[in-house]
């Protein structure tokens, strides 16, 4: 990470200082702190708005199981709820 930080400082856009703003909503601080550890929050905005709550849930699960994100069950629930309420489309009936 620190190596990439150094790279970012060379470029026009310092990565962390330019972290995009997510839509307001309950749990946003947990989302920002958890997700931005490894990647820009642009991933969330880029993947909107078309995922269903179930797909967001699966994405969060993938971050924990496949990518080893240190997010506990409670934080994961908060993240899924936030993404489902702010960046998801309605589930298919």
């Amino acid at each position, binding site marked *: 990470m620190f190596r*990439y930080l150094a790279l970012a400082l060379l470029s026009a856009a310092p990565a962390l200082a330019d972290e995009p703003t997510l839509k307001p909503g309950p749990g946003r601080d947990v989302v920002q702190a958890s997700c931005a550890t490894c990647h820009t929050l642009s991933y969330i905005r880029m993947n909107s708005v078309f995922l269903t709550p179930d797909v967001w849930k699966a994405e969060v699960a993938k971050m924990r199981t496949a990518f080893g994100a240190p997010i506990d069950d409670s934080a994961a629930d908060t993240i899924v709820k936030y993404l489902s309420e702010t960046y998801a489309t309605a589930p298919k009936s």
Partner: protein
Amino acid sequence: MNRRQMLTGLGGAALAAGPARAVDKPFWLSPQLPAGTREEATLEALPGKQKLIRLTDRPPNYETPIESFRTPITPNDEFFVRYHLADIPLMDQLNGWSLTVGGDAAERQVTLSLDDLRGFEQMEVAAVCQCSGNRRGLSTPHVPGVEWGYGAMGNAVWRGPRLKDVLAKAGVKAGAAEVWLNGADGPVLPTTPDFLKSLPMDKAMADEVIVATMMNGQPLPHLNGYPARIVVPGWTATYWMKHVTGIQVSSKPLENFWVKAAYRVPAGMFPVDRPFPTQDNEKTWPITEMVVNSVIADPVGGARLTAAGFTIEGVAWDRGHGIRQVEVSLDGGKSWKPAALGKDLGRFAFRAFSFPTGRIEAGNYVLSSRATNNAGETQVDTLKFNPAGYHNNVPQQIPVTVA
């Protein structure tokens, strides 16, 4: 202050200061992309690069603007950038670079310097490097991932030793099953699996597969894999390991997230010449060979043109059979006319095509292109949907107006 607090703090500081940077939008973006992607996509120049379309900056995922595909060689400073993981070594950290070649199915382990690589017989191949997920953002329905438009690809002349000659330094034993590839970039957290990929032995030993140290006559750009990357002509870029530091000849199939869960397509949906039996299963295969495809770089959608006429220009490519024909349509695919093909740069390269309309009546037109390769394969009429949004070779539908 731990890292999370630091991140939050910095975010807060940035908010308080207010965003001052002017947003520079791409010349053209596909209207098929998700709305959030269209909002997020911004033009930005990384060190050593022209302005590319930034989708994410950490890790960096920047695509080449569509207008760059008017020529069959993609300049190094316009070449797309794609990383999975955000810990990327800086140039000065790569200056002591070396490559270790060994593994349980090698006779010995050897360590090679950049000079050592230059001491092998040097091969040159013009080849398309295309992200497996190129055009994912055009998938219907949309699927999660990096929402690429048309520009997660480029064509360059790559130069370096054959991989098989490098492997011979370590000696390949009978019973070798795969060649495992590792690069110097890695994850932010130690709990995240490092990015390793593998090749089946027969592809690894193919003449066209090289360890490239040069790209279009220059050293590899930092963010395209300096100082050496694996070049696997015909196959998608997930195998083209950047900043390659480790090559292992293995008696066993590689097992990690990147080969077992990611980069897979439904078994049999996209036929290939060269299977990957050590990684195939009943339900899915690894994505390997590209599908025949083409892109119109000019005009772009929404262009307003004149009755004097215009030239439809772009490039076509496939998995290594070479392009036989490109046709264009001005009526959205109802009728097709052959385009002129540009110089043949080799069977793995972009093949330029052009079609001058001559004088043309005022009205609305829908432009499309359709390539056919030397195996007789043609772009599909309807998307072969798959969960990761791979291999989209449906012809574009480009509305333009002549007035």
